[in-house]
């Protein structure tokens, strides 16, 4: 049996590296990370203190890699990490962490806590302590090709709609295209307008692009559940498709973890650098804007705000680009308090949205986002992550707020300069 406590322990011991050793060596238990975590601020339950979520891993580090820890272990005074411990920590590691990385920003000794949570999840999966919801999503991603169980037929149906709406052809499996667009399952299932939007934008900007029938799904549940083995398999499909089509760029969709998986983790998961570059759709749109290839006309006077997806902004470094795009079309764009790299998570990242058990907690902690939204009183929230979008819609509904949520790419597409030309109907 692959899944065992021993396998989990081996995995964790193997995951502990120099950064983690420096982090655990440095923690002075100041508790500041609690203030950065919405699961603490909205519940005031100390167990949600980020560094506390790593306690089993810290104990392993101490026992395996420190002088006193080894000594204590030799004389039998240390508390070995048990299955019960890991079971107790499972909800802390998965349900109350969206891998948003805000804690890593506040830690005065510089601990990258989210870096450790990501690695701790490797051991949790290997020891069988991952939540059912995430297991199911990952299983579907591996076996069916998408965590939501979508397949190429679903995509093809959405492409047909898009082609009908736009009167344009959506390129599929075009070898030698410059850009290969990847989508997220939420986009295909719930926000298919994105397909038409990028088709029109790329048409106007004259971008050579394609979709790939064997690599269209960007969502990577393997990253969220924390299994590099499975994450590699999922990202490998995109790499394979991109190499098959010999594209220069792969475009990450409006999906936070897809970006992280594709842009930052991917080459490390497959063990080699990519022969292509990865660019976030928002990065690309901003490049097109600055080079004058993306032109908009008309503005939307609605009071709008922008929700920064953690993985794109804080963990991805795409900060100014969405703002540049917002300013093109939204004169009444207002920033929420803490906007940018300090933004608060929607509450559903890092696999929390796929984890049914976590739902009541997720719904509760949305109050943090609501507070931020209330401060600016915007009519429309623009974002660039389909998972954030779903979480925002869900949260707004729970709080009976009639704020609209829209994807940034779509917002831009709505104001394309050749708008009339684009709309065939």
């Amino acid at each position, binding site marked *: 049996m692959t899944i065992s406590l021993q396998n989990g322990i081996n995995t964790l011991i193997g995951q502990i590296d120099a950064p983690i050793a420096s982090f655990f060596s440095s923690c002075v238990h100041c508790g500041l990370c609690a203030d950065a975590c919405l699961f603490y601020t909205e519940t005031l339950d100390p167990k949600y203190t980020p560094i506390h979520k790593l306690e089993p891993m810290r104990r392993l580090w101490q026992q395996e890699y420190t002088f006193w820890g080894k000594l204590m272990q030799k004389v039998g005074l240390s508390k070995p990490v048990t299955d019960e411990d890991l079971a107790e920590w499972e909800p802390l590691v998965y349900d109350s962490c969206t891998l948003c990385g805000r804690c890593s920003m506040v830690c005065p000794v510089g601990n990258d806590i989210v870096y450790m949570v990501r690695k701790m999840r490797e051991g949790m999966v290997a020891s*069988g302590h991952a939540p059912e919801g995430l297991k199911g999503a990952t299983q579907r991603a591996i076996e069916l090709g998408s965590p939501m169980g979508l397949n190429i037929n679903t995509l093809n149906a959405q492409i047909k709609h898009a082609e009908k709406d736009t009167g344009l052809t959506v390129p599929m499996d075009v070898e030698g295209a410059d850009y290969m667009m990847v989508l997220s399952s939420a986009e295909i299932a719930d926000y298919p307008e994105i397909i038409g939007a990028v088709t029109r934008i790329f048409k106007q900007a004259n971008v050579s692009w394609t979709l790939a029938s064997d690599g269209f799904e960007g969502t990577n549940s393997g990253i969220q559940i924390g299994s590099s083995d499975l994450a590699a398999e999922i990202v490998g499909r995109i790499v394979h498709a991109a190499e098959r089509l010999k594209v220069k760029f792969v475009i990450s969709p409006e999906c936070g973890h897809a970006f992280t998986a594709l842009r930052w983790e991917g080459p490390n998961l497959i063990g080699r650098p990519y022969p292509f570059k990865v660019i976030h759709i928002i990065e690309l749109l901003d490049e097109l804007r600055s080079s004058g290839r993306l032109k908009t006309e008309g503005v939307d006077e609605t009071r709008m705000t922008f929700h920064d997806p953690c993985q794109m902004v804080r963990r991805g470094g795409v900060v100014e680009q969405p703002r540049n795009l917002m300013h093109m079309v939204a004169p009444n764009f207002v920033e929420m308090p803490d906007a940018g790299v300090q933004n608060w998570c929607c509450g559903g990242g890092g696999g929390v949205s796929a984890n049914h058990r976590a739902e009541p907690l997720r719904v509760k902690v949305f109050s943090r986002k609501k507070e931020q939204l209330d401060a600016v009183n915007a009519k429309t929230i623009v974002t660039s992550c389909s998972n954030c979008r779903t979480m925002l819609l869900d949260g707004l509904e729970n709080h009976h707020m009639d704020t609209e949520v829209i994807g940034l790419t779509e917002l831009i597409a709505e104001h394309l300069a050749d708008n009339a030309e684009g709309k065939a109907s």
Partner: protein
Amino acid sequence: MKEHETLEQRLQEQGVSRRSFLKFCAAMATMMALPPGSASAIAAALAKVKRPSVIWLSFQECTGCTESLTRSHSPTLESLIFDMISLDYHHTLQAASGFAAEQAREDAMKEFHGKYLLLVDGSIPIKDGGVYSTIAGRTNLDMLQEAAAGAAAIVAVGSCAAFGGLPNAQPNPTGAVAVSDLIKSKPIINISGCPPIPAVITGVLAHYLTFGALPALDDQGRPKAFYGETIHDRCYRRPFYDQGKFAKTFDDEGARNGWCLYELGCKGPTTHNACATTKWNGGAGFPIEAGHGCLGCSEPKFWDAGSFYTPLPAPAADVTSAAKAAAVVGAVAAVTVGAIDRGKKTLAQQSREKITVEDLKGN
């Protein structure tokens, strides 16, 4: 001098006025911080005192203590205190020599057994049976033990007798020790200093003669009246210390302005003595007034406390070499243990079993 003569009579013979004598007594009372009325009590007691026998033994010493006491530029009242004791043996001062001198010592010891006062200066070498210092063929150790047996009390004069002093400093080739290391059954009073302040010696003797007992002592066996405070506590440069104004060299602006000598190695803060108040050379001054820091000579181990010019906060030993060696040890240990731990990590990674989709199904 006749045996039955009192000190008062003796002083009158020498032409010392009663007024001068009272002044001396008042000074003694002040120095020892006795109540105001004590001066007359001291005068009354001293005036009547008969000459007690005193034996002064000099062992491993430099005679500096005796010099301190006797080499005043002009005869002082302090020196008179010696006139009231019967110094039966002092090998520097006595007229007798050879067998006659030793005979005088033995006679005094026999005659005043249990009553004489034993003064000792110099440390006592005990290594190799004490052979490193002998008088008339007898080791200091032997002589001290014999003399101590019949003494009423012992006064260890100077830092060598009190604490071992210079002979006791590293590497102490003769195994020099203090009187108190050898004699446990007699009251011992340490009058430390290298040399001790003459007024302190006479003050203690005056106290003994007046009250017939030793004064209150500190934990080093020193009379509290003289060693109760540090040089630093009573130093006239103390305000500069408190303001953080320090001379950096012996000839800089700070030195000329009379700033604190702490950074030039002054040991005043850790040294108990009366120099700053009693002063030296008939009240002319004390080392700090002369622009030099205190050496700490009245404290044990002062020779081993590093350079006289090293400030107190500085290490008294070579820490740089220790640190360098430690860095090498630490680095070697880190690389060795690190390699082992790295091996453990690799082993854990290798023995880790790959997760497959099957592992996500059911339990």
